[in-house]
């Protein structure tokens, strides 16, 4: 809220456009050192496969985002508690005909536990990261990170491995015992960066009109506050002054993205707090984020791009009703929203029945008949109950990908 009592309106636009001074040297780019270490024999650098898109980052360095042949590094909290989030990411790839791998040879990044409990250390965290990178390298597919925490954590791990030779030596020895080489990807890529890269392809396949949908965006702390230079900043989005992911695809879909005064605030996830000290999490999420969004922007949906943020903002609203707090806005990932806009089934794909805050008004406003869709999903459930089919499949959700493109590697 502005000091004059007026509500904030839309994304701030400035008349002056920020232009980089071309003579000013860019800050050090860690990827140069990553390649130097490969030349020194320290590790193998897995290159970003073609085709890729170059995207702009905070200090001007272009970043390569692979379009396909990606090894999907899944998120515990997404797959476990908000499975429509992971499913929507896969569905978007299938709808765009882009090959990917959904591996079983993948561990959690273990970042949630690390930031919650510290029952780990730098060597273990680095070893877990590079074990996953080596697993991806063995398939020839390039890692695409689903979770914001994993992404920020792996950026940190990359910094530590680049800076500390002793840590590299330690994890190299561990990997050797596992029969794996030490591999560092050329880029560490978050799925929301892939969504940014293909946002116009997504928008071109939009079925439902989003022009009447008001969106507020919550950017994940671990996406842009950790290793700050490695995050997408686009001069056409927020004048390059805020990270562009999520907002970019919402805008491309024609939704109205509205600003609010606590945009930069954390959601209140807290890692340990969301599990065992939730009074803090829900107080912060409701008091600083949800109520502010509702009061200042009146969103139809809150979009974000991280597991913890979706969990926190979605699940914190129920208890606040007891205290007559102003809550009641649906929360989902931009992947789920994009998938809905493209015609994905709200239950078979976006799995909205796992969400706590009521999403039905949003679906109605988009023109999606949720009653009919729920009926279809209940019929799916009944077929599974009766034993007519064991699982819901990709064929059932009509997200075809040519068989030759789909590679399932254990």
């Amino acid at each position, binding site marked *: 809220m502005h000091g004059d009592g007026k509500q904030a309106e839309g994304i701030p636009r400035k008349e002056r456009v920020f232009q980089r001074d071309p003579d000013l040297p860019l800050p050090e780019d860690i990827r140069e050192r990553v390649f130097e270490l490969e030349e020194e024999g320290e590790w193998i650098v897995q290159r970003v496969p073609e085709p890729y898109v170059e995207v702009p980052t905070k200090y001007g360095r272009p970043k390569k985002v692979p379009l396909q042949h990606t090894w999907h590094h899944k*998120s*515990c909290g997404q797959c476990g*508690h908000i499975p429509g989030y992971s499913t929507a990411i896969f569905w978007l790839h299938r709808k765009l005909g882009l090959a990917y791998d959904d591996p079983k040879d993948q561990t959690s990044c273990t970042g949630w536990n690390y930031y919650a409990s510290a029952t780990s250390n730098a060597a273990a965290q680095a*070893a877990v990261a590079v074990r996953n990178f080596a*697993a991806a390298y063995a398939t020839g597919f390039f890692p695409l990170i689903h979770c914001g925490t994993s992404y920020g954590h792996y950026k940190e791990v990359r910094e530590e491995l680049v800076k500390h030779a002793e840590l590299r030596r330690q994890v190299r020895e561990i990997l050797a015992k596992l029969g794996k080489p030490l591999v560092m990807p050329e880029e560490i890529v978050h799925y929301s960066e892939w969504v940014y890269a293909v946002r116009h392809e997504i928008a071109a396949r939009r079925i439902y009109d989003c022009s009447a949908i008001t969106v507020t965006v919550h950017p994940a702390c671990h996406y842009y506050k950790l290793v700050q230079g490695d995050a997408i900043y686009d001069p056409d989005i927020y004048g390059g002054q805020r990270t562009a992911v999520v907002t970019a695809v919402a805008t491309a879909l024609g939704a109205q993205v509205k600003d609010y005064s606590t945009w*930069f605030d*954390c959601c209140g996830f807290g890692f340990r707090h969301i599990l065992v000290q939730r009074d803090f999490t829900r107080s*912060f999420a409701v008091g600083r984020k949800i109520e502010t969004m509702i009061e200042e922007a009146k969103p139809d949906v809150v979009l974000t791009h991280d597991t913890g943020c979706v969990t926190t903002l979605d699940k914190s609203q129920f208890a606040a009703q007891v205290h007559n707090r102003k809550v009641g806005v649906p929360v989902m990932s931009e992947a789920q929203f994009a998938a809905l806009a493209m015609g994905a089934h709200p239950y078979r794909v976006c799995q909205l029945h796992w969400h706590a805050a009521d999403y039905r008004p949003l679906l109605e406003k988009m023109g999606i008949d949720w009653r009919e869709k729920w009926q279809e999903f209940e019929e799916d459930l009944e077929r599974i109950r009766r034993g007519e089919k064991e699982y819901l499949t990709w064929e059932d959700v009509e997200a075809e990908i040519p068989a030759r493109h789909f590679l399932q590697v254990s």
Partner: protein
Amino acid sequence: MALHAPPKLERYADVPYEEKERLFQEVKSDPRFPDYLYGCYECGICVAACPSARFYDFSPRKIAQTLAREDVELFYYQLNEDIWNCSQCFSCNRCPRQNSPGGLITIMREVAVRNGLRSAKEALEGYSRVIYKIMVTGTQVSPDMIQADAFPDWGPVAKETADNLELWRKALPPETMHTTTTAWEVSEQTLTELYLIWHMTGVMDMIKEVDEGLHMILMDVMEELLEEKGYALAE
């Protein structure tokens, strides 16, 4: 924001100074320490950004100041009273000096766990099932953790999810996600490698310091798979 009372340093007067100094040096000697602390000029930008500072008697500025000034007494107090309030969001990384109070706290927490401080054990009470889940299964949370009695504040969706869990998990198109006890299906070879990482990096020793009972259970589970795969753990 509440007025902050001065820290009650006398609470730890019976702990020998040498012990406090030893723990301080353990933090300071971590290879990441110089990456996280360059010097603090007390601007308070970190406090303004910090979610925990709004609800707890907590200040990332004070963490950075204490370590920069090498105030061992105040460091020991913070090690026991403050570090578990941090949200680990790294909003404090907007520090104009490029300090990372959140990163300093990560190191302090590891030291607290490694040394089995009672405050660390208390902070992690009620969290042990999550440690078990990640150590043993390779994913940190699982669908079957959503139970109405565990998450009553999440609303009726918690009960509805628990009541329909197995069916709803079968109604997921991704083939790796038909699980209930793990977030996705993790291969046995992958788990073996994860167990070896925990052992080779000293993580099991850390867990033993904060929860001996959990440590025993973890060792039993891990040893069984590792022996099956032909790995013998050193005594």
